[in-house]
């Protein structure tokens, strides 16, 4: 396989050189943070008064963790380290669950972020010849604009269509012979279920690669998409607190996402104790952003659960790889006392070919007991008209789920397109237990 790099020097730098660069940037970060009231108080409390107190990367452990609530408490400008006139871009979370969180970029920060995205895009084998249809939402959400600028920097032909309007999306794919998509996996699944009604077959499209992101999904969903469209689908990782997409991206080998360690320091901790875990052990992802001077953020607890693979990658990149996100510390469901991650359910049902492209986990309460219903759309091409095959499918899903999560779910089969779908981030869990 041919390997292309955006910045070969940095991408293949040896570990000591990466760590030296990290240390230098961490010290700059500490100096920058000490100019800010919020961080200054916290750093002084642990005895850090200047970058002189950071002599090795191990000293990172002396820094306190930051959490989402710290960003909320400091809304809107408490974590801004520069004058507002030096800020060229603002992004923000939707704030649907509370006070929004806001992220600021200086011109240099934007340049740094864009370069990481260009690097990520090239790592998947894309180049200037590609036509890139960006189906992520534009606006305050970092996903749309982030990849947009990265793709332009690579020199791809960028179609900034944004999310929604499925028929137009498919028409654009055909009109411009789109070769690369950036899309949520749930929307790409949904599009597939609509192709027939647009008289289009997957082979009528020119798509070769797809960047998946912005929502949790399982490996089996990725495989299903690759199979349905005949494409390579790449996992990506990012969060607005760390700029947005481009924190980590898969290379052509698709065996975990390279974390760009010249720009981020990655730690995996035990979410209970805060203790740092060795490579290979699953825990909470903690990140330090080394390349955003307008809004420094260190040791940020992402609540994402994953593990690190430090084995060398065949692509030659020396940056360690992060596993797919296994779940979030805050999305775990407790069903009749059993801990279940929605991703476990998805992993099981997406491996079943007769299951279509959409599903919903529905929780209700009957008396004092939780009831788990898993509603799945059937795959119309595998519908035979045979009633016993449908009953068999229900039984199969139920049994495979029971074996995986040890809870007996109720399975409902639905027509393709019948379950609520989203053109952006999917809502896979409907928990109606509190209201009852």
């Amino acid at each position, binding site marked *: 396989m041919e390997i292309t790099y955006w910045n070969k020097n940095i991408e293949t730098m040896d570990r000591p050189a990466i760590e030296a660069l990290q240390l230098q940037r961490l010290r700059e970060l500490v100096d920058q943070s000490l100019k800010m009231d919020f961080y200054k108080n916290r750093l002084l409390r642990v005895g850090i008064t200047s970058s002189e107190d950071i002599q090795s990367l191990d000293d990172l452990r002396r820094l306190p963790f930051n959490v989402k609530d710290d960003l909320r408490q400091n809304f809107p400008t408490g974590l801004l380290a520069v004058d507002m006139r030096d800020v060229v871009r603002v992004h923000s979370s939707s704030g649907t669950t509370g006070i929004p969180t806001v992220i600021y970029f200086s011109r240099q920060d934007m340049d740094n972020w864009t370069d990481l995205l260009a690097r990520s895009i090239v790592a998947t084998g894309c180049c200037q010849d590609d036509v890139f249809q960006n189906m992520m939402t534009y606006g305050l959400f970092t996903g749309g604009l982030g990849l947009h600028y990265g793709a332009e920097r690579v020199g791809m032909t960028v179609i900034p269509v944004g999310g929604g309007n499925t028929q137009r999306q498919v028409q654009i794919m055909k009109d411009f012979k789109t070769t690369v998509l950036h899309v949520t996996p749930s929307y790409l699944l949904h599009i597939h*279920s609509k192709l027939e009604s647009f008289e289009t077959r997957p082979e009528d499209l020119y798509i070769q690669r797809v960047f998946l992101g912005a929502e949790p999904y399982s490996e089996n969903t990725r495989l299903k998409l690759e199979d349905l469209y005949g494409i390579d689908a790449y996992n990506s990782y990012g969060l607005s607190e760390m700029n947005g997409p481009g924190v980590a991206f898969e290379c052509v080998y698709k065996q975990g996402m390279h974390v760009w360690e010249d720009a981020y320091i990655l730690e995996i901790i035990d979410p209970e104790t805060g203790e740092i875990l060795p490579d290979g052990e699953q825990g909470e992802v903690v990140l330090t952003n080394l390349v955003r001077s307008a809004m420094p953020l260190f040791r940020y607890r992402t609540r994402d659960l994953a593990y690190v693979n430090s084995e060398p990658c065949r692509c030659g990149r020396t940056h360690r790889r992060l596993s797919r996100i296994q779940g979030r510390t805050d999305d775990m469901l407790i069903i009749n006392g059993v801990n279940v991650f929605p991703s476990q359910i998805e992993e099981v049902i997406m491996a079943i070919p007769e299951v279509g492209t959409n599903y919903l986990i529905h929780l209700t309460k009957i008396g004092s007991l939780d009831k788990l219903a898993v509603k799945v759309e059937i795959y119309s091409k595998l519908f035979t008209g045979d009633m016993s095959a*449908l009953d068999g499918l229900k039984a199969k899903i139920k049994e495979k789920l029971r074996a995986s999560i040890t809870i007996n779910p109720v399975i409902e089969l639905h027509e393709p397109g019948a379950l609520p779908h989203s053109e952006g981030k999917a809502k896979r869990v409907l928990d109606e237990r509190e209201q009852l």
Partner: protein
Amino acid sequence: MKITQISVFLENRKGRLSQVCSMLGQAGINIRALTIAETESFGVLRMVVDKPSEAADLFRKNGITANQTAVVAAEVPDKPGGLAEVLKTLSDSDVNVEYMYGFVEKHSENALLVFRFDNPELAARILRENGLKVIDEKGIQGL
């Protein structure tokens, strides 16, 4: 001598059956025979129509999950024991009936039934050899 049955996957949702039927009605497709197999959360609507390939196209374009199955339509003497005799003949030849249902209208002295067999070719031959009238696709359109 096989004819085409259209099977439609329907979830139990208010008005769904009516939507599917009016879709056919608007396209000028006539339902000749139908039956519904159902469980608590979904059902399968099976039908014989006068223009099966048009119906299949219509369903595909409208995102309705449907499938085509080969069935046999045969006239059965409309008298006590008429069906029993036919079934015995088939069973003696090791042909199994998976399910069966009747046509909406009767057009002769005989009852017109739709059979789904595990071996439709063989079944149609046996029926004809026993003097029963098997209706083909053209015959359905002419009803």
